[in-house]
């Protein structure tokens, strides 16, 4: 096998080839060792069946799933001209998982007959949203991945809600989320073989148009290629591959990212080489990871799911790739939507809206019979519960919006938002650690754990991007990498399925219902404390979006300004994350809405975004509280569902 590879690669460096060959050898040894371990004693028919129906198909599925994801990743990277695209970074896997969870609960009959179809629809829908969000920025690689991350987070929040609301099949959904390669028959293997071969043939037919896509769209078009059609066909094919894998074994992350890069390292340069080597590399990586997982979990009854293990590799892999991506990830200049400017007095409108919504939140609600206006005695009873929620929601919305303004201005990227700093995921890891190691910890300890996790995450991101003077793409990619690492850790804890999983899910889905009056006041104080000084730094906010070089030529120390602003953004989102969960969508949306309402200069935009963010969250909280009364919806999800379609429309408006 390694000989073949040597011949294929035109300029393989010796060490890279050795690396691949070594990987292959190690994998083969690991798997061989498993087979030896499971080899039946003479006459032990059951052990023979286990070898034949569990061990061998598990290996086969690992190879096939790895190959399919490797191919899917290679195709996506090619067609989007994006070296960090893969089914997990683009949200395809999360979309497929969400669709499967929803179908299991609400259309079990459909799940029984059309599992792959359900997964495909979910994955395709997620990818469609990602493309819609980043279309106006010409599918610029970082913007695409940012959108993918956002869609993944929302899909995960959605899945969490489904799991929480339906206890029946909780275990199935945890297993999918973790991604397990366990087998008990050859049926999934056969299904994957058919699908992989089919996809490989189609990919082979598409090779010529794919080669042309290396040119930019205009050139490819000039050569007579239907660019949009080709892209659509190839993306459909990769979603098909990724959804097939997800349907059989659940979420397996980052193989599609790792495999093509490994293939490139081994010397693959042309499209044909990459398309040939990526599935091989993917198959080897997944089989090896699975072998290691089985090795580690020997003797421990609580296994780490394989998918969670590959996801753990994803964060470090992205970090390792960062310096090697070179200019291919340079952030393209954004085409700013030029809104008519509004006079500052118009800021009264969002302020008024906030007041109206606040009144709504306090006075209007539901009781056992339906909608009711709270007055008199009832009002006295409900206000102590409604007021803290509304205050915390408003404070969190304001802080997220301010953090969003800062992030978008520091990076000059319209898709940047607080969650790309990896803060909420870091807080999640801190909370998970507290829940696992100190199950009886008090709320204060939990808050402390979450805060510590957030601080560690942000320090990591700052450390990783400081060397590059906080260049926009480094900052964003470091945040994405740290975020996905932290997300994978949370997945591992969640896959254990214990009571801490439920608490984590509850936190992930985002809620204001636990907020005490003290919490609300603390959140409000944090909002005032961190937002109030920002207008003093308005000049930084004006200079930074123009880029590194401009800041330098007018004598602004960009590193200093960016690190201070990043730190403030981190504090803002950490504070809101602690009290109401990881609800970062508002942080993306509010700055856009403020800008499109005509508040363009830093201070009006900041004030506008803060007011709009607060109003959005108060509205979302009110809806979350009343729509499914007495059951409560997760506020972050409501905010995403209310604002998401509007944002897609805004970003694509001409």
């Amino acid at each position, binding site marked *: 096998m390694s000989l073949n590879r040597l011949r294929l690669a035109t300029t393989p460096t010796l060490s890279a080839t050795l690396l691949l060959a070594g990987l292959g050898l190690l994998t083969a040894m690991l798997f061989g060792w498993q087979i030896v371990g499971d080899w039946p004693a003479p006459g032990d028919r*059951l*052990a023979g*069946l*286990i070898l034949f*129906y*569990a*061990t061998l198909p598990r290996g086969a599925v690992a190879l096939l799933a790895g190959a399919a994801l490797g191919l899917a990743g290679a195709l996506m990277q090619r067609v989007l001209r994006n070296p960090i695209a893969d089914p997990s970074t683009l949200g395809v896997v999360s979309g497929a998982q969400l669709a499967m969870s929803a179908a*299991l609960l609400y259309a079990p*009959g459909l*799940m*029984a007959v059309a*599992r792959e179809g359900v997964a495909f629809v979910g994955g395709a829908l997620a990818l469609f949203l990602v493309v819609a969000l980043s279309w106006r920025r010409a599918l610029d690689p970082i913007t695409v991945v940012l959108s993918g991350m956002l869609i993944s987070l929302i899909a995960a929040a959605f899945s969490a809600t489904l799991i*929480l*609301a*339906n*206890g*029946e*099949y909780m*275990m*199935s959904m*945890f*297993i999918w989320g973790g991604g*397990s390669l*366990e*087998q*008990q*028959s050859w*049926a999934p293997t056969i299904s994957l073989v058919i699908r992989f071969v089919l996809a490989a043939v189609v990919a082979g037919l598409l090779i010529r148009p794919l080669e042309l896509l290396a040119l930019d769209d205009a050139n490819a078009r000039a050569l007579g290629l239907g660019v949009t059609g080709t892209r659509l066909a190839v993306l459909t094919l990769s979603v098909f591959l990724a959804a097939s894998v997800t349907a059989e074994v659940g979420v397996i992350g980052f193989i599609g990212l790792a495999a093509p890069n490994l293939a490139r390292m081994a010397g693959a340069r042309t499209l044909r080489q990459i398309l040939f080597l990526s599935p091989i590399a993917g198959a080897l990586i997944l089989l090896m990871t699975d072998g290691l997982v089985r090795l580690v979990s020997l003797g421990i*009854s*609580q*296994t780490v799911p394989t998918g969670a293990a590959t996801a753990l590799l994803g964060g470090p892999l992205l970090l390792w790739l960062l310096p090697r991506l070179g200019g291919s990830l340079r952030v393209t200049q954004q085409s700013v939507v030029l809104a008519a400017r509004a006079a500052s007095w118009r800021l009264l409108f969002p302020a008024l809206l906030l007041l109206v919504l606040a009144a709504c939140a306090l006075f209007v609600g539901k*009781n*056992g019979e339906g909608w009711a206006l709270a007055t008199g005695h*009832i009002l006295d*009873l*409900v206000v*102590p*519960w409604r007021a803290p929620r509304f205050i915390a929601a408003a404070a969190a919305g304001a802080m997220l919006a301010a953090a969003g303004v800062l992030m978008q201005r520091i990076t000059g990227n319209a898709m940047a938002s607080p969650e790309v700093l990896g803060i909420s995921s870091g807080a999640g890891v801190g909370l998970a650690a507290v829940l696992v190691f100190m*199950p*009886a910890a008090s*709320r204060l300890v939990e808050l402390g754990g979450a805060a510590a996790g957030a601080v560690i995450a942000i320090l990591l991101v700052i450390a990783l991007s400081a060397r590059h003077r906080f260049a926009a793409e480094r900052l964003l990619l470091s945040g994405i990498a740290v975020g996905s690492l932290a997300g994978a850790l949370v997945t591992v804890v969640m*896959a*254990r*399925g*214990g*009571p801490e999983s*439920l*608490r984590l*899910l*509850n936190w992930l889905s985002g*809620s204001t*219902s*636990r907020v*005490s009056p003290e919490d609300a006041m603390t959140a409000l104080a944090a909002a005032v404390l961190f937002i109030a000084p920002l207008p003093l730094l308005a000049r930084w906010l004006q200079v930074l979006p123009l880029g590194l070089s401009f800041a330098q030529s007018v004598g602004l120390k960009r590193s200093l300004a960016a690190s201070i602003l990043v730190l403030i953004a981190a504090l803002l989102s950490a504070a809101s994350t602690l009290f109401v969960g990881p609800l970062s969508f508002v942080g993306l949306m509010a700055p856009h809405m403020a800008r499109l309402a005509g508040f363009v200069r830093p201070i009006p935009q900041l004030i506008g975004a803060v007011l709009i963010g607060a109003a959005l969250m108060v509205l979302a909280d009110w809806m979350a*509280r009343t729509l499914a*009364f*007495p*059951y*409560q919806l*997760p506020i972050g999800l409501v905010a995403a569902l209310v604002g998401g379609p509007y944002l897609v429309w805004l970003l694509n408006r001409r």
Partner: protein
Amino acid sequence: MRTRRNLLQLFAGSLALPFASARADEGGIAIVDWALLETALALGLKPMAAVELVLYQKIVAEPALPDGIIDLGLRGALNFELLATLQPSLIYGSNYSAWANDTLMRMAPVREFSIYLRGQAPFEKAVAAMRGMAGDQGLQARAETYISETEHFLAATGERLARQRQRPILIINLGDARHFRAFGSDSMFGDVAARMGFVNSWATRTAYSAAAPVGLESLADHPDAIIAVVGPVPPEAARTLPQSALWRAMPAVREGRTVWLPNINPFGGLPAARRFARLLAEELKRVA
């Protein structure tokens, strides 16, 4: 046969008790934990409000819910506002709802009874919970009757399964067609099976009543055991497993030592313990 009829009558009798209304001089009680809700209903108490009643009817099933209990929403996302307007006089919760204690105590005193603790057998704790609740409500006599009935029922049911309990039992829950989790000695099912005289085949330690999911092939490590699959079973697993060569090759399946039980609350109180014992006995008798 006679014993069985007697037992069933006894059992039915305890369910038919009229509901005792909460003490007249106070507001009603609210219950934010399913095991305690079961316990209260078994005592004949009718709480004014409790949690996640839609799913309760699917998974817990018995004791049946009387009409008129107000649903407080998900266990993990209680509707505090609604609860506050109901002005309860007392709230029952467990370690699973302890996260909400600070908030709940702003409305009414909270009584906490924890049944499921890491590495501890839950049956006695369920008994203690029932005694504690009965003590609060002046229903000691009813509690003692229920407890002794339950203990008697478990022992008697075990006796009737003398032949079956010569084999160890493996109590599992299916995640999908490829994974199961087993209930160990610190689970209610494991504890109840032990009280019925069974040896639990799952000897390894578990955390909070059930191990993390393991692969189906691990069933082969328990060749002599009876396998009891507790519902709910995912439809897809129910469809594929009977065709699976590996599943059919497992000794317990091959030799007809597998029973499928309907939904039972794995984190229940004494009523869940009783339901498990009854359903297990019925199914084992049926396949025998």
